[in-house]
Every structure is written in C-alpha cells, then in structure tokens.
C-alpha cells in the first residue's frame, strides 16, 4: 500500500515546527506503524534528509516509549494498543496520515515527535511508592491478599506511563496516570499506611507540572493502550477527600 504522511518536524525545543509531507510507498499490511516510519526514514537518509525522530524502544507495547497522535487519535485508531502495536492493516491504500507529537504544556517537544515526559517521573518521585527499604520485608505469604483485590490492583498497575491519557484529554490532564498509581497502591494492604501522604503529594506535583484538571470526559481511559478503567480516578478522589478529612491541619 501507498500512504501520504504529514509529519510534524521540529528541530529542537525552541525551534518553530511545521508539517512536512512524505510518501510511504510499497508498505506491507503486516508492517507495524513504527516499521513503516523506519522504511520512510531509511529513504530519507538515503536522500540526505534527516530522519524523523520518534521515541520507541521495546516495540511490544510495554515500555511506554512510543506515542504519537495519529489522525487525531493518541496511538492511532487501534483500541488498547500502543503505537508500536498498531499495524498498517488498520489503514487503507492511499490514506493520508497526520502524525503529531503529544501536545501538552507539561510535555514540551524535544524534537519532531519526541516529547519530554519527565514530569511523570517527578510525580512518581513525589509519592508513587511504598516506603520500604531493601531487606527486612516479612515473608511474602505473611499477608494474604484476596485474589480480587490483587486483580484490581494489577488492573491499575498495568499503566505503562506513555502519556496517551494526557495527549488525548482535552484538558491535558494526567489524572489517569496519577490515579492508576494511587489506586494500585491504595488497593493493596501494603500501600495503606502511606495512602494519605501519597495522594496529596502526587496531586500537588501533578498540579505543579502544569497538567490540566480532570473533567471526566473519559477520553483518557478510552485511548489508554492498557485500558486502565475510569474507576481509578474515582478512587483517587476518594483517597484525596479521605486524606483531607484525616489531615491534622486546622481548618
């Protein structure tokens, strides 16, 4: 199949970017989307033009590196898949494909389709953990955890930190990302001792980074490659209310 691409090209953080047209020729339907870009890039290099920069690593949908806005959708048209898991069979011969980087103030473009998602790491550093030092942990079976609790924890823990939630949200809100971690840890007994501190710290950092506020459009969950459910966001709010109610600070 042959495709027309319109790709956002931007030399660096401070440069002004623009869309550039490329043709992708003789692409097999079994090719992955990123492999299609590889093919285009090889041709560009041969022609002496700089290849399109994009983040990618594992190419099996788990590292969360890749992510682009493809024809108006985060990670493209395939539901429940990261960009690397999108295959060209999702497109038709002759299609025009517009490829843009994630757009959010908190995710500045570094180059072309590569954005800076370090805000996510800072949110995690603020509270996305259980404070246990190495060593001294009790036997793993000392604390039985009901199977359904464990299952619901892993539903939330499946987040790959790709940023599609932010990209798809009209408010560029990172609530799904933050809530997934809050819910993962709040659902497990090991996470309960720090639950109030954790949710307060993570929400504060999320705001500090300049993400928008969640207005429940549910776009994040719909576009999430791991299909993290909306109930994690509700859980974050419950945790937040609880943390406020229990805080020692005077009203």
């Amino acid at each position, binding site marked *: 199949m042959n495709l027309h691409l319109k790709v956002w090209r931007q*030399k*660096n953080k401070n440069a002004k970017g623009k869309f550039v047209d490329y043709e992708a020729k003789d692409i*097999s339907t*079994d*090719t992955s989307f990123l*492999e299609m870009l*590889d093919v285009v890039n*090889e041709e560009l*290099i*041969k022609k002496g033009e*700089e*290849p399109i920069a994009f983040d*990618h*690593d*594992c*190419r*099996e*949908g*788990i*590292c*969360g590196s890749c992510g682009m806005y493809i024809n108006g959708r985060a990670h493209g048209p*395939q539901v*429940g898949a990261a960009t690397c*898991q999108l*295959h060209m069979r999702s497109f038709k011969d002759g299609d025009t494909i517009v490829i843009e980087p994630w757009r959010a103030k908190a995710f500045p473009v*570094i*180059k072309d389709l*590569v954005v*800076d998602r370090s805000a*996510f*790491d800072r949110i*995690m*550093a*603020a509270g*996305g*953990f*259980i*404070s*246990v*030092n*190495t*060593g001294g*942990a*009790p*036997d*793993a*079976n000392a*604390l*039985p*955890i009901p*199977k359904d609790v*464990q299952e619901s*924890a*892993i539903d939330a*823990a*499946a987040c*790959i*930190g790709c940023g599609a939630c932010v990209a798809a949200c009209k408010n560029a809100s990172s609530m799904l990302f933050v809530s997934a971690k809050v819910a993962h840890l709040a659902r497990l007994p*090991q*996470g309960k001792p720090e639950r109030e501190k954790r949710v307060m710290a993570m929400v504060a950092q999320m705001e500090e980074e300049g993400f928008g506020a969640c207005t429940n459009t549910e776009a994040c969950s719909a576009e999430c490659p791991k299909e993290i459910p909306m109930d994690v966001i509700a859980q974050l709010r419950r945790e937040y209310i609880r943390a406020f109610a229990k805080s020692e600070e005077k009203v």
Partner: protein
Amino acid sequence: MLSEVKSRSAGLDSKVPAGKLEEKWTNHKFKLKLINPANKRKYNIIVIGTGLAGASAAASLAELGYNVKSFCFQDSARRAHSIAAQGGINAAKNYQNDGDSVYRLFYDTIKGGDYRAREANVYRLAELSVNIIDQCVAQGVPFAREYGGLLDNRSFGGAQVSRTFYARGQTGQQLLLGAYSALMRQVGLKKVEMFERHEMLDIVVVDGIARGIIARNMVTGEIESHSGDAVLLCTGGYGNAYFLSTNAKGSNVTAAWRAYKKGAFFANPCFTQIHPTCIPVTGHYQSKLTLMSESLRNDGRVWVPKNPSDKRSPDQVPENERDYFLERKYPSFGNLVPRDVASRNAKEQVDAGKGVGERMNAVYLDFADAIERLGADNIKEKYGNLFDMYKRITDEDPYKVPMRIYPAVHYTMGGLWVDYNLMTAVSGLFALGECNFSDHGANRLGASALMQGLADGYFVIPYTIGGYLAELKKDKVDEKHPAFTEAANNVKGDVKKLLSIKGNKTVDELHRELGQVMWDNVGMARNEKGLKEAISKIKGIREDFWKNVKVLGENEELNQSLEKAGRVADFIELGELIAKDALHRKESCGGHFREEYQTEENEAKRDDENFAYAAAWEFKGVNAEPELHKEELVFENVQLTQRSYK
C-alpha cells in the same frame, strides 16, 4: 582448590570464599569490611542502566546512604527492557509443597546451564531468591494469588516443580515498576540524581581503578564527565548484535563494550540464548521479534505435520498426522524442556521442511487441548494478554488457530567477567544482571533473569560494594583529572568521525548485514567453517562501516542515527568476538551448539575435560587478537552429567 584456580590464570581470581557451599555467602558477608553509616554519604556511586539490576542497586545503595548517580538512555528509568519480561520470576519458596528447595533451584540452574556456571554464585542466587519475593511484595508488586490470598506459582521450562511467581503476563513490568518506584523515592529524597537520555560512552580508569564515566547528553549532545568511587554497569545483554531479537530497539552493548576496551574481560560471549517461542519473521522490513512467554508451554502443545510441505491448514491435519516432537522425544519434560533444547528441535523440524505458515518458518503451539480441558476462560485468565498480543501482530486468533512460533535471539548468558563480588577485572567497576556472565552458564532457565537482576541489585552489591570501598584509598580523582579530559576528547573524536564519513549506507543497513551473518553462522547451530566465514565477513562489515556509514545531522541535538551508529560499531566488534569465542569452544553446551560436537541423539555434547571453564577475553586492540583467560569451573557439589530431559 581455589588457590589452584588462581595459579592457573593470573588476574582471574574468582574470589569465591572457601567453606561449605551453603555457608559461603553468609561467611563472606561477615568478612566483608563495613563502612560506617555516617561515612557512606562521602562516597559517590555511578549506576549505568535502570533495569531490574540497575534500579534495585541504585535504590538500595541510596537507602544505605551512598550518593548515587543513575543513568539511562531512555527518557525515563521505567522504560528499561526488563519491563518486557512476561512470564515470571523463580524463587525457592516451596510454597507449593512440591519438593522445591534452595538446593534444588541451585541444582536446576547449574544443570540447565549445562555446567558452565560458577557453583558459588548460583547457590547464592538460589538462596537470595526467597528474599526477592518478600521484598517485591512489600513494595506492592501484585503477584498472582490463589483464592485464599496466598501467592500462586506456575511451572517453567527445565524444572519439575512450580516455583515461578508471576503477575499476569507482565511480571517484568511489575517487578521493574517496584524497583523503579524505590528508585524514584530516593530521587525524591535527593539521594539519587537521575540522568535520563544519557548514554555512557566511556569508563575513566586511572591506575587500574575505575574513577568515573563519560556520558553523552542525548538531547544537547554535550559530552559530560562524572566521577565516582565505583561504577556499576547494569546495562543488560547484547542480543541486538543479531539485529533481530526480542530485545528492545535501544538495547545495546556499548557500555559493556567500552568497559571491555578499558580492561574489563568479556566472558563467554558465544553463550547466547535463542528463545523457542517467538512470533516468526514476516518480512524484510521486520525491526524486531516479539516473544511469546515460555509459560505458554505449560498448556500449549508444540507440533508440526508429519509430512514435509504439508500445506493444509492446521485444523485439517488429523491427529495421527501430527508430530508432537517435544512430547515424543522428551517424555518426562515434554513441552517444558529447557529453551536451548526446544529451540534446536524447532529448527530441526523447520530445516526438515516441516515448517508451517506461509513462509514455512515456524512450528505450531496449539492450545486446543488446553481449552477443551480447562475452558477458554481459564486460558484467557492465564494468558489473555499474550493471546491479544499475538492476535494484534499476526491477525490470527490463537483461541481458534494454533500459534505459529519460531526461535529468536533473546538473552545473552555471556557478559563482562566478574568475580564473586560482581567486580570486573577493573577495580571499582562492577557488572550486574544480564550484563555480567556469572550465573546462567551456557543456558538460562526461564524466569531466572529477573531473579538474577534483582538478586544482584538488592542483595549482593549492597554488601560487596562496601567491602570494596572500605579498602579503597581515599585519593579523590575528580572530573578535572587529565584522564577525564582525555577520555572525553576520545569520545568527541569518535562522534566527529562518525558524522564525517558521510558514506552511502545507513546504520540500519549495516546492522542488518551484521545480524544476517550472526544468525546464519553464529546462531542456533554453529560449525568451524561457518564461524571462520563469519569472522572474515564481520571484518568486512567493520571496514565497510567505517568507510560507508551515513550519519546525518550533528552532535549538538537529539540525533538517533548517531546514537545507533555508535552502538552498531560496537556490535560489529562484539560480533567478531562472539564468533571467535564460539570457534574456540570446541564442544557443545547449552545455547552454544557446535554441529561437530553432538551426541548420537543430536543433543549437545560437552567436553568437560577441556572446556569446563569460563572463557574471559581481554581486549588487545581492534585489529589484534584478544587474549584468553580461563577461569576453571570447580564443581564441588554437583556431578557433571550429560543433561537429559527424557
């Protein structure tokens, strides 16, 4: 015994403590010198890589009080390729009451590795495995549970007990996120300074002691110097030397290779693992191969049609015309034979013309029986995400049609030679996880990589690094030392050279050429002629590379071609060493199968008389022959036997 090892090969002291196997680690920990808690903050430790080994080491060292600088080439520490491990992590917990023990895990690992691993290291690994599970659960890793709330286990290849802990098909992800969260906690506490999008390009060695690194900031191109009292390489394996592998696209050997060029020894590079269950190649554009977890072999049955070139669709092939070749040849382990055995057998079937699929390059992994026996829901619960992943890639539904699988390069048992303390031949330079060579011998058992990475990071290095630092003379070598300037200038020179060639071949083209040679001649079956041919071809590719590579753009920007070019240059040099190592090892063992050395039943035939050693190669110059150092492997506890999974 130990002194004998020392005398046979000067400079290769494995530092394995004396005493009984079960007591070595405990005694060693006691004998290691300690550093006063208040003094720990005076030491700076550099950790390269943030996978299971790197993240766990950086977090644990910071918790102890050391100042840590952590580097990764990805945009976030959470993306290291440990995240992609699917199946599980072994631990000798014996929660299933099925006869497991530390000794059995040790024994299975030594045997699975075809007796080419160091006993003491493997025993320590088995011993620590139980602590890992405890630690991870405390961090909130959601391992699978039984209805009663206790932890569940599954079986993996090469073992007859259920000792594998798992979190759906995303165990690596959950373990890494656990280690990553511990790391981020220390970042928040300012005990770890993170350097994302930084690639280590050289080790700075002064008077035989590692004093720091040179790294390139991949966004600005700046060549940075970082000094430290110890450098930990936790940079994973080198499977991408084959171009197509299950590794992440960014996985590379550069850090380990540059360490090798600075005096660390590279051990057993030819011990590469070809994983039996991967999705076969579909076309020339293929950029990587996707693994289907080994756990699938718990319930899936591997078969091919009995008649070569049988073009019927699988459901049209009647039961009596199918060959369940693993079950037929290995009745006691059946589909759960170790990876090397499973892979070689699949290759044998495909080479015999019995391959399935359009390109006849695969064997079936069939779940029809399991679905009938356990129900589709049960299978979905166990493997749902793997089935989805398969369907997405191939457009075929494995609930209805058997999966097509074929072996692919997956893991590398070889790596930097380290002693019992995980220190390389360069003082102060340590290697952890897949980056070192120590624990898996010639073949790694499934679910043992995660175990090793975390054992090294959480429970070994925090002790052994103290022992090293306590004896290190406090003569600070900082970034102003001429050795840093020199190393930085060399790196700058290399970058400039790559950018100035302006040839006519892209980096990927050259990488594919290398990969083809590696796969054809240094792959699942090797022979003298092929290996010699490989060595000469790789030399040709190296010359071609430095004449014809085309790297556009400049250094002072995000330049992915430049990053790749540096890595491929190292892969090419490594490829040659892999082939040389494979050529010198005139025996078959584990993942290293030399066609000249096989039993009558086509199994790997070891030569314990002459090759029961780890081959540690010392760099002598790009165009010079590397020097071989042998670490004789001493087996005091297990008896070397021909592996049999029948």
